[in-house]
């Protein structure tokens, strides 16, 4: 188990290093001089030079990469070209919207998908299965941002149960804050739940055809006992992969949903920064998103080992 974890950890570090190089390189190619962008066209050459050296723009590329990475490791993401405030502070504030939203959506998606998938698999070919599969067929086809607009139309504009957008803030108490994240989370979660339910169902159906399920029945387990005790854990392996991918998708998809609901999350930050050409913010937020995705994949790898003893090896 230790060996497996170490191996995955090394792979995590390599991935992060390469990802950071890619992001750094892409932002480097981007045209435009941040210093002249900040000071305007009429800036004096010496003030520009002073600002460049203040921002570290006069250093060699390799030195700037190293200082960017070491800065991030210490929680220093640099200074925004546009607002002249530390990027880490801007990110920290937005993070408390985006991360809870993604987790909220993931929880909802799992809570809906697991029972739906298990039920459909256990009723294979019967009405319940056909109905759930039909619903998921629709679910995977719905664009989440359009679904968000429809939720706003129905629950915010017509029924007035929720506000149409904006974030209440955590200082108003967790209930208000979560309430303002509810519609966005549903919009994100339902299409993902449809995918997850389909994966769950087909993973279970695959497992149901395995020899050990027949062995379990021969012991005297009923169909549902065999499903719960022997099927579920084996079916979880492909399902975990999808949950990992979905978290990445939810974080990124959140960027779009934040636009629909005017939520002050990382997504809005990134779009504002692109239009203001505040590239250091774009760079850092992208790195953060990629870091989150790689980290989640690492956790999924560890979860595999917890589920499947064959990966652990004997210590």
């Amino acid at each position, binding site marked *: 188990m230790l060996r497996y974890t170490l191996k995955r950890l090394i792979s995590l570090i390599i991935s992060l290093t390469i990802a950071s190089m890619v992001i750094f390189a892409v932002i480097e190619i981007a045209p435009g001089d941040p210093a002249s962008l900040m000071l305007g066209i009429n800036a004096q050459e010496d003030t520009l030079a002073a600002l460049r050296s203040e921002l570290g723009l006069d250093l060699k590329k390799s030195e700037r990469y190293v200082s960017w990475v070491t800065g991030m490791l210490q929680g220093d993401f640099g200074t925004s070209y546009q607002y002249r405030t530390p990027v880490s502070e801007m990110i920290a504030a937005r993070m408390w919207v985006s991360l809870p939203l993604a987790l909220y959506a993931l929880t909802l998606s799992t809570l809906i998908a697991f029972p739906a998938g298990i039920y459909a698999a256990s009723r294979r070919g019967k009405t319940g299965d056909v109905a759930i599969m039909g619903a998921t067929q629709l679910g995977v086809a719905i664009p989440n941002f359009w679904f968000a607009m429809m939720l706003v139309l129905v629950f915010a504009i017509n029924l007035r149960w929720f506000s149409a957008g904006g974030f209440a803030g955590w200082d108003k108490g967790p209930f208000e804050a979560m309430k303002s994240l509810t519609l966005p989370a549903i919009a994100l979660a339902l299409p993902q739940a449809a995918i997850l339910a389909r994966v769950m169902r087909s993973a279970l159906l695959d497992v149901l055809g395995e020899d050990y399920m027949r062995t379990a029945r021969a012991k005297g387990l009923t169909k549902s006992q065999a499903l719960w005790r022997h099927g579920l854990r084996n079916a979880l392996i492909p399902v975990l992969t999808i949950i990992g991918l979905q978290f990445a998708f939810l974080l990124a998809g959140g960027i779009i949903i934040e636009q629909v609901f005017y939520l002050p999350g990382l997504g809005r930050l990134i779009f504002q920064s692109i239009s203001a050409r505040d590239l250091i913010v*774009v760079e850092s937020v992208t790195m953060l998103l990629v870091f989150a995705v790689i980290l989640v*994949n690492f956790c999924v790898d560890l979860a595999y080992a917890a589920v499947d003893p064959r990966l652990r090896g004997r210590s």
Partner: protein
Amino acid sequence: MSRNLILGLFLSTIVVIAAGLSFVWTPFDHASMNIPDKLQSPNAVNLLGTDQFGRDILSALMVGARTSIAVAFVAVGIGIGLGVPLGLWAASRKGGWIDEIIMRANDLIFAFPSLVIAILITAIFGASAVNAIIAIGIFNIPVFARVTRGSALSIWEREFILAARVAGKGSARISFEHILPNVANVLIVQATIQFSLGILAEAALSYVGLGAQPPTPSWGRMLADAQTLVSIAPHMALVPGCAIILTVMGLNLLGDGLRDWLDPRLNEART
């Protein structure tokens, strides 16, 4: 043919025909404004209503289908063109360092969701439909590489591959002569799925302004326009939304139907 396949073919064909027809004919010029008739609900003249500038939504929808199809098609092409050879190569060197590098590179690209790639590209080149194509296309490469490698590995285990090696054939020749035809089914099905995901992704990117730019109509931007007006003109959001849903559903049903239709096990039962 199954019901899925027929329904899927039907829906996909309608979209393709609508897009093709738009080159020669649309009910109105999709770009011509007619302010007095703005925000009309669907009626006998404008079958699907008009937008905030009085432009005919059906016409915009037909022209927008071109953008969606073109973006998704080229993006799938990029995925197949690069992903399939990489997957075949990796499978033919199973466990070797080439396999390792290709698969690790795949994992790395998976860490950059297509939206993030689109954001990075926009940061350099600015927003455009090409931008969307590249972003979605790059993300498709590891998808096809993985699917190809996965299926190819199981084919490599079969004895007819050993027979080909005994006949002195090299791994590149075996990959194209024996492996590729036997993974083609899986790739066709995956291509329809990626096509439908491409349509969804294109809509999302142009919705947030990272995709096709005006005046090119696109379904995603029609929805962006509709957003502020959703309470007074819900048809502006409903019509493009339903277009996306029906197209994506059609492609998914087509994929499901093809999977069953091409499955050699079911095929043998038929002959």
